[in-house]
């Protein structure tokens, strides 16, 4: 159990995203105009130390773009991202080495996440060398430690990626993300490509590491079962905006936004068949008076225009939802 379910207002967030916008041009055909895709529109996020915050949504909702922006891999159009109080972009941003020690990322696909031409040992020790660990023995030591931490053997360092299974590769990806000792790890669909049994092992590993090393996670996922299981806070993203945000209990037991409700209702759940207590959601709450939930989810979201103005409103102690006044 993470103690951070009660976030103390005094603590400085490890990750803070404020009003993040990402737009990019998409080349049209020869005769078509260049379009602008509004991928992320005003996202606010905060991850407190030791917390796991999940960003949930379907493909194209902007959750992965947000992750890339946090990792410095996709320049934002506007907005501020800080990790441990240091801005990722703009004046005062740390150089790429300092930034690397602040946050790391674990990718979805266990097969493309490792360089097929590099041994595991080299993939893990090269970053150390780059970051000034000149002593060979110390590097080998740290590689062995991190391999053990993720449930592999130090001997595995001499092997190439193709000698490992998907689950083992994902473990190596996690070891690589931890090797520089960052406090924040972005998990981009860390278990979606894995089998059920492997998935459980990786989720357990991630929860153990979080507890043992005091890591903070920002998890990007579409798998609500996994999200509910590991998250302290949940933010639901739709069409480039966060439409609902709150503690996991609030979002999962009393979802308010129609989109969140649809996500939860449509996920195929064996509990429904066995008559689990949670099969039926409580009735949808009314939006605060004089407002309606926004954006409407009837039609496909329009991403070639900026979204219409809306506000994020508190509807509970630790629960906010996007509405439109009037």
């Amino acid at each position: 159990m993470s103690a951070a379910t009660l976030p103390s207002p005094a603590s400085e967030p490890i990750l803070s995203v404020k009003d993040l916008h990402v737009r990019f041009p998409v080349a049209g055909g020869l005769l078509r105009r260049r379009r602008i895709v509004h991928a992320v529109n005003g996202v606010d996020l905060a991850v407190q130390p030791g917390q796991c915050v999940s960003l949930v949504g379907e493909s194209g909702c902007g959750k992965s773009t947000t992750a890339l922006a946090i990792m410095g891999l996709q320049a934002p159009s506007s907005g501020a991202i800080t990790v441990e109080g240091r801005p990722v972009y703009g004046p005062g941003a740390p150089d790429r080495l300092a930034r690397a020690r602040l946050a790391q990322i674990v990718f979805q696909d266990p097969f493309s996440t490792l360089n097929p031409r590099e041994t595991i040992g080299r993939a893990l020790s090269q970053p150390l060398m780059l970051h000034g660990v000149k002593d060979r023995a110390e590097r080998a030591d740290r590689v062995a430690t991190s391999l053990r931490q993720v449930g592999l053997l130090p001997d595995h360092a001499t092997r190439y990626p193709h000698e490992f299974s998907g689950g083992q590769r994902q473990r190596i990806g996690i070891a690589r993300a931890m090797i520089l000792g960052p406090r924040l790890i972005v998990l981009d669909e860390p278990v979606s490509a894995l089998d059920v049994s492997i998935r459980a092992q990786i989720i357990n590993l991630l929860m153990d590491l979080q507890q043992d090393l005091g890591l903070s996670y920002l998890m990007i996922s579409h798998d609500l079962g996994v999200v509910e299981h590991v998250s302290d806070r949940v933010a639901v993203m739709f069409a480039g905006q966060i439409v609902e945000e709150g503690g996991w209990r609030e979002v999962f037991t009393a979802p308010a936004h129609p989109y969140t409700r649809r996500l939860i209702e449509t996920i195929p759940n064996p509990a429904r068949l066995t008559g689990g207590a949670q099969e039926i959601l409580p009735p949808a709450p009314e939006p605060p008076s004089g407002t309606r939930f926004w954006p409407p989810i009837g039609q496909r979201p329009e991403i070639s225009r900026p979204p219409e103005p809306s506000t994020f409103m508190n509807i509970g102690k630790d629960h906010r939802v996007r509405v439109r006044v009037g």
Partner: protein
Amino acid sequence: MSGPLLDIRGLTIGIPNRNGPPLQIVRDLSFDIMPGEIFGLVGESGSGKSASALALMGLNRRPLTTLEGQALYGGQDLLAMSRRSMRKLRGDRISMIFQEPMTALNPLARIGSQIAEMFVLHRGLSWSDARPKAVEALAAVQVPDPKGRARAYPHQLSGGLRQRVMIAMAMACRPDLLIADEPTTALDVTVQAEVLRLIRELCEREGTAVLLISHDLGVIAQMCQRVGVMANGRLRELRDAKALFTDPRHPYTQGLLAALPRLGSRATEGRHRLADLDMAIDRDAPGFSETYLRPRGEAA
């Protein structure tokens, strides 16, 4: 009560080995599918579920070979059938949809003609008669603006629409059996829900039986009347879906269900460690290979 639509007995698939016993991917698989039933086959990657489905369609690629077994359909053994008669059956009486519709559709042909081809091939219609039937088929899978979409190419459609097109093609000739191999794995959850509902409604209306293959226990639970659980090439448990999910008997099924982070479980059970299937069961133990099976129609 009529007999089963498809009766699979002792299906064994493997790679022949000149110097010894063949490497077996699927061993002694037996189950049957009743007319109009949705039968689920669930398992992890490498369990042999997809190889079994492809074997029924005669689509396994060398060196994978069907070594033993029968698949009786209307008195004929699908596994012993000539390629020619298999081709006739395929797409007409038994059809199949795949995980990634893009690989199953011809990228250079309009989807209308691809669906129309099914009528030309299997019903002997002329192209001019088949085209309006293709538009009807698109309307039946609830594709908006079927007339316009019939002129589109596969890459112009979203993943969900492409899968609907695949379903339209598969259902064009009102088959007796639809084999759906991970039909919604590549789709978003809300789209998945729509596609699953569509498959169920269409098959109910046409009386088509479905062999649904998936790794997703949720999808299986939602769709199927009976379920077979496969692991390491063998069927481990074959039960009514409700019985399987409420009272799993085989250690593998029990482990699989315990390993699943179930939506709604945290409120009651807290943030617990998930069961580690590999720790909980020993796949090499003698007891593991003993399949737990229950005959059809057991009391739940």
